[in-house]
């Protein structure tokens, strides 16, 4: 906890605990920022998980490191640096994706794409390390940059996050349905005249914006706590898009609020609680998904007989 502050203590009185949590301005800002980020990350992450673009998301997230280091070196505000770096990375990945898919068979694209994303990532990180060693003062921030912090978020940052979230969510509201179709069946979408490539690059840019914002709470290395775990859990629990999105948002909010509260009362870092709650939610969802799939099979034995025996339902972990 911050120096010069009375050690916060947890009691059984919930109302008193909440009052204690929101006693300091920085904690109110942390909750505001956390809420905005959780909602945005849960929705954008839902599409990312559906489209199997976790590696791209991770790569864009670590770009906030060279972005911040570069901005420090150039004397710019760090927000400029990381939004710019995440945007450039999103465009680079979009280009690599397209180059991969034009090569012919679909599989060629997948293997080529994963190499290209990896190369984009290390190129960014190597540059970041160069910036860091040229500008030696940033080293103090390295830890919070990579692993997140909830201290020192001011109202201007909350406002920026809110604007970014509104832009991202408004854009997703417009392209959400065609993007869902493209993500589920690219060929059908192309046949119907949906601009597949534009949506592809557009989504990566939205992902870039959302990820850049998320890194401010979770740090560059832990974005998956909000970007992957809640959507993946929600998608295991329900197949309906609307319900699944809502569940994803609810889980992300739960993880964020709980992690912020616990880390306020504990001497240990936020990132640990965020990721531990996230994996807890994900594992629970997997267990519930397994159990309900088994229950459904037992309840309708006729349905499994009617189905051809060669198509078993896919196991969540498989």
């Amino acid at each position, binding site marked *: 906890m911050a120096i010069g502050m009375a050690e916060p203590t947890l009691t059984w009185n919930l109302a008193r605990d909440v009052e204690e949590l929101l006693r300091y301005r920085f904690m109110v800002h942390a909750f505001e920022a956390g809420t905005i980020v959780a909602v945005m990350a849960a929705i954008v992450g839902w599409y990312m*998980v559906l489209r*199997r673009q*976790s*590696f791209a998301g*991770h790569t864009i997230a*670590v770009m906030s490191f060279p972005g911040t280091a570069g901005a420090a070196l150039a004397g710019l505000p760090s927000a400029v640096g990381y939004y710019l770096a995440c945007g450039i990375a999103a465009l680079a990945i979009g280009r690599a994706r397209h*180059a991969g898919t034009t*090569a012919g068979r679909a*599989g*060629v694209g*997948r*293997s*080529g*794409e*994963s*190499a*290209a*994303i*990896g*190369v984009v*990532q*290390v*190129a960014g*990180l*190597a*540059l970041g*390390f*160069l910036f*860091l*060693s*040229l500008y030696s003062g940033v*080293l*103090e921030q*390295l*830890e919070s940059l*990579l*692993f997140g912090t909830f201290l020192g978020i001011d109202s201007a940052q909350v406002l920026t996050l809110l604007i970014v979230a509104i832009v991202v969510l408004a854009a997703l509201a417009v392209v959400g349905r065609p993007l869902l179709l493209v993500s589920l069946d690219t060929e059908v979408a192309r046949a119907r005249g949906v601009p597949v490539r534009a949506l592809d690059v557009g989504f990566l840019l939205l992902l870039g914006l959302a990820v850049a914002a998320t890194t401010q709470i979770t740090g560059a*290395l*832990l*974005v*998956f*706590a909000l970007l*992957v*775990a809640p959507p*993946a859990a929600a998608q295991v629990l329900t197949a309906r898009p609307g319900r699944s999105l809502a569940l994803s948002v609810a889980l992300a909010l739960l993880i964020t609020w709980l992690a912020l509260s616990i880390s306020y009362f504990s*001497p*240990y*870092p936020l*990132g*640990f*609680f*965020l*990721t*531990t709650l*996230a*994996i807890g939610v*994900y594992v629970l969802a997997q267990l519930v998904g397994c159990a309900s799939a088994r229950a459904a099979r037992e309840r309708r034995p006729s349905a499994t007989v009617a189905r051809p025996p060669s198509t078993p339902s896919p196991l969540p*972990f*498989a």
Partner: protein
Amino acid sequence: MLSHEFIRNAYLAGTFVALACGVVGWFVVLRGQVFAGDALSHVAFVGAIAAAVVGIDERVGLFALTLGFAAVMAGLGRRAQADDVTIGVVFSWVLGIGVLLIALLSTSASGSNGLILANTLFGSIFGLSAGQSVVAAAIGFGVVLASLAIARPLLFASVDAEIATLHGVPVRALGLGLLLLIGAVTAEGAQAIGALLVLGLIAAPGGAALKLTSRPYLGMGLSAAIALVAMWGGIALSYAIPSLPPSTAIIGLAVASYLIASLLPRVPTIAL
């Protein structure tokens, strides 16, 4: 340049780290497992921090955690290839534990954790002692031998798993074997060029080689050669330009080789 002992150590360790990264990296790119390699390299960082907290040799932590995580990933996925969501959730949790360990380290140890952090994340190839570089070279050599030993069946299993299974090739065991080799390579590379950057020596040479040739053994050799040139050139460049960190120079050359290979005319690839 070679009259300095630290440069000789860097060349000794770097040569074999690069060869191992190049050969293993070719398979990683062929099978589209770069994300798994990335996760393993980040996990290596947590291993190093854990070793510092417990107070044991850094290499014990590095190898224990990467090999363990490789086995877990193989266990969670079909054909020993975990899907990206599982990889993502599990490795971010391991990193979360890493943050906790950093916090423990800063409250218990002698306060130099900023240096440990930077060294594990970005490597310090010029800081290797003679003993360390001999061990690193030996392990790198072992990884190269092991990869070449399983290269033929692994290639078969990677190109067509169904037919390979019918022919009695142990596809799952080979998948686990490759993940363990990636784990060993990342633990190796993390000491030299850092947990965040070792991916570059795995993905870039392999990706470049697969763009340049469709012949498997030629590709493996080419990938190892590109990694080696990047390593040797990077060390020399960094020696010549003191403000350029060696890790950045090495990765810069590897990335440049990938870009050049992308610009050259395409050959028919064997990628999956």
